């Protein structure tokens, strides 16, 4: 089903449409039939990764190093379609592409880029991004992780929590303070002193791996420092990339929920007629489609600005905040329209709804994005 009330497709290039359609088909054929079971069991669909890599989704908007070199609108459409499948799958691709590959691409040495980027684009190596700590979420500047120079090595100590893909990562980008300045370090799997624990008991993003990384006198060679990182802003620039993808991805979740709710409402008979014939249901469906339409237009313009190099991180904040908020509202309404069926993993509404609770919080909570925008508008920071 096409959800495009304002014919935004007419604003896309032929390639952008083909790319979206290709990922859409992949998600319809390969992801949607299996993802509910993975969510229930709490497993990530690892067997999809070689095929996703073959399609070229990892680092798709980066140039060279075997990356697809797409523009940012095409990249956004990929995120939308992946999250129409599941937020966990989109998170996997976001972390690999926007957090890890982007960080190495932007802040790495030539050797680091050549070592990691092609094998990550091919889906042979995976990365994770260690910024958040147990006691420092919205306030990463306060992080406790420390790096100390020791001859030709750095010694890292600290704990990173809520790290997507941590347990399967071949390399972790660890943000830690070196002489008081936050820098990025590449810590390879198996480095003595690095312990990775998978976090269980999640009721959200269940088809995604979340880990805790503990670094105890973890000794890494000096060439593993990302040489161009300078302070927290380097880490935040990676988050801007990931949040951009989330803004698009949330539209995908919302589309999945709306489509499911609409189909259900048209076929579910109560009081001898489809529930779609009731005004209360129609109001919900109209709300959903209107919000999706607004979000589609916002994403598209955001992507065009990004392609022109004119995107500001506060615009990304607004899109992430708005789109995740609307997607979560839509998922809840869809769950409600589906009645008792809405709580079953046979349908997707509750899976999206639970996932979006994480998406609302990670990569900058809804509140933090409001404060970022508040500062932008008034010139007065309400935090720090």
């Amino acid at each position, binding site marked *: *089903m*096409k959800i495009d009330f304002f014919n935004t497709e007419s604003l896309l290039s*032929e*390639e952008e*449409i*083909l*790319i979206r359609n*290709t990922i859409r*088909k*992949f998600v319809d054929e390969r992801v949607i039939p299996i993802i509910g079971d993975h969510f229930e069991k709490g497993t990530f669909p690892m067997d999809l990764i070689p*095929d996703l890599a*073959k*399609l*070229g*989704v990892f680092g*798709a908007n980066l140039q060279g190093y075997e990356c*697809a*070199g*797409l523009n940012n609108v*095409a990249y956004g459409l*990929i995120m939308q379609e992946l999250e129409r499948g599941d937020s966990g799958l989109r998170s996997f691709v976001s972390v690999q592409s926007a957090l890890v590959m982007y960080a190495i691409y932007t802040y790495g040495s030539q050797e680091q880029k050549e070592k990691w980027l092609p094998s990550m684009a091919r889906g042979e190596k995976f990365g994770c991004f260690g910024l958040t700590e147990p006691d420092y979420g919205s306030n990463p500047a306060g992080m406790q992780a420390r790096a100390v120079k020791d001859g030709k090595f750095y010694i890292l100590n600290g704990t990173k929590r809520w790290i997507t893909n941590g347990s399967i990562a071949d390399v972790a980008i660890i943000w830690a303070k070196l002489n008081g300045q936050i820098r990025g370090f590449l810590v390879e799997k198996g480095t003595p002193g690095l312990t990775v624990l998978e976090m269980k008991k999640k009721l959200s993003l269940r088809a995604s791996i979340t880990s805790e990384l503990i670094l105890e006198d973890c000794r890494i060679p000096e060439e593993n420092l990302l040489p161009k990182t300078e302070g927290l802003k380097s880490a935040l620039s990676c988050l801007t990339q990931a949040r951009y993808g989330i803004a698009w991805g949330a539209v995908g979740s919302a589309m999945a929920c709306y489509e499911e709710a609409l189909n259900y409402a048209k076929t579910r008979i109560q009081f001898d007629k489809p529930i779609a014939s009731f005004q209360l249901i129609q109001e919900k469906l109209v709300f959903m489609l209107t919000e999706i339409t607004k979000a589609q237009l916002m994403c598209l313009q955001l992507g065009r600005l990004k392609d022109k190099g004119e995107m500001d991180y506060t615009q990304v904040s607004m899109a992430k905040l708005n789109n995740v908020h609307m997607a979560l509202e839509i998922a809840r309404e869809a769950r409600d329209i589906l009645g008792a069926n809405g709580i079953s993993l046979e349908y997707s509404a509750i899976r999206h709804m639970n996932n979006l609770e994480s998406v609302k919080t990670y990569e900058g909570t809804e509140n933090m994005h409001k404060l970022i925008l508040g500062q932008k508008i008034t010139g007065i920071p309400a935090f720090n």
Partner: protein
Amino acid sequence: MNIIVCIKQVPDTTTKVRVGKDGKHIDPGGVKFIVNTYDDFAVEEAIRLKERFGGEVTVISMGPERVKEALRMCLAMGADKAIQLWDPAFEDSDPYTTALILSKAIQQLPYDIIFCGKQAIDRDTMSVPVYLAELLGLPQATLVVKLEVDPNARKFIAYRDIEGAKEVIEGLLPAVISTQWKLNEPRYPTLPNIMKAKKKELKELNAAALGLDSAQVGEKGSRVKVLSMELPPPRSKGKILKGDPREVCRELVRLLREEAKVI
């Protein structure tokens, strides 16, 4: 090898089809078009042959402006060149004239093997590949589920599933092969190949370029024409019999015999 694939753009299977005002065509408004499902197997097989033996894959389609989208999809899968055949005079071509138009384009090209999907999922005539082989004077193998090609010996061996048996046939190249769904698993186009597809050659040829005059093509040149088209009647509501099981059974048997006339 010079490999040619003939494809058709058809409405997506999930699209709701409506009959147009003239009662002879489907209404294209709001219809999502895709590459005919069986043609995907033809394109995939062609690309696999190219990957194995080298050469070039040319995809050809007859149809209006929108078929370029389908041709680009094939280029993104890995075909090298595409040709769109269109002329207002081609409108309402039947399978014979369609094959004639395709044959004229193919005669302008070098070719070792020609692939077609076994049928288009919109009109289901299954006749274009057969006409095409006849018009080109080539051997043909239809509904092929497995194919072996020996470009040096200029031979092919085709496996066909026939009623209750398997048939293996051998023939000389060049030949026309029509593809059945078990043949292979069509690939998804990769993102870099989608980007490259735009730079590949997509040529347009009209009636004059093919050496055809308007009396030979379209409705004028056709040997069959569509008189009418209508959607199947909506399924009528089922009947639920209630009451004493014995009575219900008796009534059911009576209805099956007298009303449905199936027993």
